[in-house]
């Protein structure tokens, strides 16, 4: 446990995630070599996405023409509409959005309250509980999965979205508590002590002083939680049975296993569905990348 504690804070000990001009390399041969290497790696990382988008816009016969073509002859935007026709994709999106919103809401509200407690209050057992909290990050979910299923089954929650978001309202998970606690510790204590002396309640301090100050960290938490719950597969796989209850991730797998209609290839449709499944997280990440980076930077001010 003690060693674990020594290791864990490193995740947030860094001052900055954005790579500054610490050592701006010139155009020495070595620098060129490194640049070319990075560029080559970037191509390897981007190509599968390019191939997916390109395939999603092809006509069925183009899919299996040999050699495969880089770009579709004429982009078939209709493929995307066909996906929406063939499977209840919009219902899946709606289900995913419900889960993501309730999940992220729960994480933000309860993990910040718990982090506030760990960071600003003194009581017996606090440090032990905090160590236990850190320890749960190492616990593989497999061991709690079966009893949780039994519990939700007993509650009659199978084939509902409840098991996918209700647990988030109970502290939101160790990682988020840890992240926000580090952030709270980086804020000067005088601020909320002064407010308490002026007669503010602890909840007022939390809501009116601390929460506004940690917006960047909250944005980080929200983004990570959004991506995690949008992409979650095992949870929906275990708890949801009927296609009208599926989330996007589970629906995508379902779509893959739908028998091909009259032997027609459907790779282009699968790729179109994949693009639609990937898009929300990309848009979110690109719009809030600043907060994402900033939040992790700020939470690392004080290890």
């Amino acid at each position, binding site marked *: 446990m003690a060693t*674990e504690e*020594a*290791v864990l804070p*490193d*995740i947030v000990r*860094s001052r900055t995630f954005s*790579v*500054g001009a*610490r050592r701006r*390399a010139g155009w020495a041969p070595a620098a060129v070599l490194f*640049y070319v*290497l*990075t560029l080559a*790696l970037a191509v390897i*990382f981007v*190509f*599968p996405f390019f*191939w*997916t988008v390109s395939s999603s816009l092809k006509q069925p016969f183009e899919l*299996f*023409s040999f050699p*495969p073509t880089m770009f579709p002859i004429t982009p078939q935007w209709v493929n995307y509409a066909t996906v929406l026709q063939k499977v209840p994709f919009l219902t899946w999106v709606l289900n995913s959005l419900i889960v993501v919103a309730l999940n992220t809401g729960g994480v933000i509200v309860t993990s910040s309250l*718990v982090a506030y*407690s760990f960071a*600003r*209050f*003194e*009581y*017996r057992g606090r440090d032990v*509980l905090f160590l236990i*909290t850190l320890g749960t990050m*190492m*616990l*593989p979910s*497999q*061991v*709690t999965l*079966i*009893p*949780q299923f*039994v519990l939700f*089954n007993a509650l009659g929650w199978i084939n509902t979205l409840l098991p996918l978001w209700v647990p988030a309202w*109970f*502290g939101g998970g160790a990682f988020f508590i840890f992240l926000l606690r580090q952030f709270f510790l980086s804020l000067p204590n005088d601020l909320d002590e002064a407010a308490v002396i002026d007669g503010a309640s*602890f909840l007022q301090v939390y809501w009116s002083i601390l929460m506004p100050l940690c917006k960047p960290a909250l944005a980080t938490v929200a983004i990570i939680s959004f*991506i995690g719950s949008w*992409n979650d597969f*095992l949870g929906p796989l*275990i708890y949801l049975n009927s296609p009208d209850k599926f989330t996007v*991730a*589970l629906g995508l797998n379902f779509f*893959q296993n739908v028998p091909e209609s009259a032997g027609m290839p459907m*790779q282009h449709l699968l*790729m179109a569905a994949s693009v639609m*499944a*990937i898009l929300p*997280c*990309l848009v979110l*990440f*690109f719009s809030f990348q600043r907060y994402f980076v900033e939040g992790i930077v700020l939470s690392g001010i004080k290890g």
Partner: protein
Amino acid sequence: MARASAEVATKPGSISLVARLAGAKTPLQARKALWGYLLLLPWLLGLIIFIVGPIIASFYFSFTDYEGMGVPAWIGLANYQKAFFGDDLFWPSLGRTFEYSLVVVPVGLLGSLVLAVLLNRGMKGTNIFRTVFFLPSLTPAVALALLWTWLFHPTVGPINLGLSWVGVQGPGWLTDQHWALSALIIISLWASMGGNAMLIFIAGLQGVPESLMDAAEIDGAGRWDKFRNITLPMISPTLLFNLILGVIGALKVFTIAFVATQGGPSYATWFFALHIYQQAFSYFRMGYGSALAWIFVIMLLIFTYVQLSFSRRWVYYAGGSD
């Protein structure tokens, strides 16, 4: 005397027995301690309902015959006996999971470190490169599995096309039982190298003091000397952190295999997590599934313990006594 203490206890703001148990000495401290517990309440409940309770329950289930409903029937060690001696898929799936992890963890760590070092050079376009490397981490594993299944297509996939340009006849990849595991390893490496491990390495690299580097440079150290003798020791705690999380993540491999190959062909990618899932949620052998899960967790604990013990030999804590 009794009256006095009763008076103290009822006076507003005085310290009750409960508060004293919480370690408070003054009324403000008592109030803070009580609020502390109150704010902690959601997590305490969550810990009990969703973590500690289930851990105990699954330990109990592992000694029972249980289908998820009704009353579990106690059968002692029979589940464990079955796992070790009577389950044809147990040892192979375990071995396969190790085989996968033995490649994915070291190669993945090295890859993440290389990417982090490249991004830490401050070259132009670093932010774009970082985002590009991070893209797979933003993508649902299901979509990754689907798009790689398409890339690995034996006849019209771009990978085999590329191989044919250099005169190599590409294998059937995910559809070939001798190549499916390798194909999944390639997918996993691509999917995880630029993810959290890389970000954590970047953080670690930025914590390496500039002064050490400058001192080494004055002493005439080359690029590799500096990396080997300064950077590596300084980021060794980060390395340990990523190693531990990497091992746990690799041994848990599930979604990619479930979607891309369903564990096939002929069980070539039947990992341990798939085995647990199938036993517990396809056959509803919750007792046996719990036993498998416990074997898995004990194994992970041993691994983590071994790594932490060995870490004393190679991890350097700059600030600490450890």
